């Protein structure tokens, strides 16, 4: 194999894996909500985008520093996540998933329209950090901004793991997702756990949205569809309901996307990512870590 091609390949793979952590975060969000409610929230990517725009608004109106922009993006998305819960999930029938699914599709379109309307459909510059820094590992360059994106996403995952595995809140969340009936009889209010899950996954989504925009340096409404579709693919590959699956799936989507970009160019890239999805759906529909065992 041609040495330069080999280096290009490794470079694409590295960039893809670093950026794939944003897809992993979105995938975790889909998976967590599905875990506690057994329902898909298709408005999740759009809510993440809307939150990111809240951060952008602060950036544009009073030139907020990047840290504050990122923070507002994450928190804004958390608040919107809770609104989505109240609009699409809280009052729809619990045993009829189609109702909340369609409500969340409506919400996805609604949020997108609002964002496009407010931003006139124009892309805006979004703050990005360590843009000019690079770490050179031989012939492979690690971009500073991507490394930052990767670092923030990994920290977000670490905090999530601490929440889920070390705190009563996480324990309650896991209890509800394993045995909803027994959890209610242990005194856990399922509504409250659902609400907190939507808030926390909203924050994760906002971090993913902010980091996506930070990696590109630009925020545009198209990002919503990208986050939604790539996040869902990550979850299908990893297995819906599995957090490690969502992480592996996200990294895989990120890597595949960049490698196909190198091999086939930007116009064909997504076709091959969809083919990957197709292959998983045919050959391993449950995903890599898929399992719904141990539940009613």
């Amino acid at each position, binding site marked *: 194999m041609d040495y330069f091609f080999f280096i290009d390949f490794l470079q694409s793979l590295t960039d893809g894996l670093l950026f794939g952590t944003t897809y992993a975060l979105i995938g975790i969000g889909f998976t967590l909500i599905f875990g506690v409610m057994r329902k898909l929230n298709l408005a999740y990517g759009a809510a993440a985008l809307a939150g990111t725009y809240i951060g952008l608004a602060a950036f544009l109106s009073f030139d907020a520093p990047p840290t504050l922009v990122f923070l507002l993006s994450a928190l804004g998305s958390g608040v919107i996540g809770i609104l989505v819960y109240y609009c699409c999930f809280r009052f729809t029938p619990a045993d009829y998933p189609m109702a909340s699914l369609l409500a969340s599709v409506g919400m996805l379109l609604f949020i997108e329209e609002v964002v496009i309307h407010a931003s006139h459909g124009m892309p805006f510059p979004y703050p990005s950090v360590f843009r000019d820094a690079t770490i050179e590992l031989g012939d492979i360059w690690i971009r500073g901004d991507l490394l930052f994106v990767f670092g923030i996403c990994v920290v977000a995952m670490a905090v999530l793991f601490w929440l889920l595995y*070390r705190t*009563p809140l996480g324990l309650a969340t896991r209890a509800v997702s394993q045995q909803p009936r027994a959890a209610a009889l242990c005194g856990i209010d399922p509504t409250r756990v659902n609400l907190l899950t939507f808030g926390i996954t909203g924050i994760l989504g906002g971090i993913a949205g902010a980091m996506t925009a930070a990696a590109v340096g630009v925020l545009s409404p198209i990002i919503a569809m990208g986050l939604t579709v790539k996040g869902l693919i990550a979850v299908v590959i990893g297995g819906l309901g599995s957090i490690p699956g969502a992480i592996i799936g996200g990294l895989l989507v990120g890597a595949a996307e960049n490698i196909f970009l190198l091999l086939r160019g930007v116009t064909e890239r997504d076709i091959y990512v969809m083919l990957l999805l197709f292959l998983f759906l045919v050959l391993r529909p449950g995903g890599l870590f898929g399992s719904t065992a141990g539940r009613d």
Partner: protein
Amino acid sequence: MLALDNLSKHFGGVRAVDAVDLTFREGEIFGLIGPNGSGKSTTVNLITGLYTPTTGTVMLDGHDLTQMAQHERTAMGVARTFQNIRLFGNLSVAQNLWVAQNGRTQRREHFMSRWFKAGGEHGPEIEDLLRFSRLHTKRDLPASALSFGEMRRLEMARALASNPRIVLLDEPAAGASLEDGQLLAERIRDIRERGVTVLLIEHMMELVMGISDRIAVLNFGRKIAEGTPAEVQANRDVRAAYLGSKHEDEELIHA
């Protein structure tokens, strides 16, 4: 303490529970028996809040539970175990207890200390329950790794972890051998020693007759008898329900 008044649950035309009145007294072991499909499980589900009754009320010490959600009833002091075990399989033994203990305390504590305080699975109350269920050597194993009997013991301990006033045991002897039944009887008495009223739903007649202070019999959703074990055993309707009317009476008495 716990009183069911004119309690009914109809599923379409089926009267699963039909105008049942029952009163459980503080500190007693109350046996609820009846043939399959007689409405025992439906009654339990009405008490714990899975179903809303068609008619009637569930009162606990003067508080009306009838319209409360399941987790609110748990906070009021109603706990249960399940006939088909429902543990949190991926959580450790100690964490299963901690979840129930935490669910009970969540109303009293501040938000941050309630949801973000780590390490609660080592509290003294949890150690006590681990000893009670003889699972202290397995405290860090996932609940799904336990044997069947251990799972039953853990479920019982989990019900106690929510600090209930009354605990509903739904067929705790199902799948157990006769010797296990002896140990089970001791454990149920232990629960009563802790000041918790016990409602025992069970098929194993020897167990129910041996430890219950009072017994009620359901058949086709209706209460057909209530009284001490001896009174219930002597009741004609009960024999008819269990054995068929022309059957000899010996079996129930000696079973």
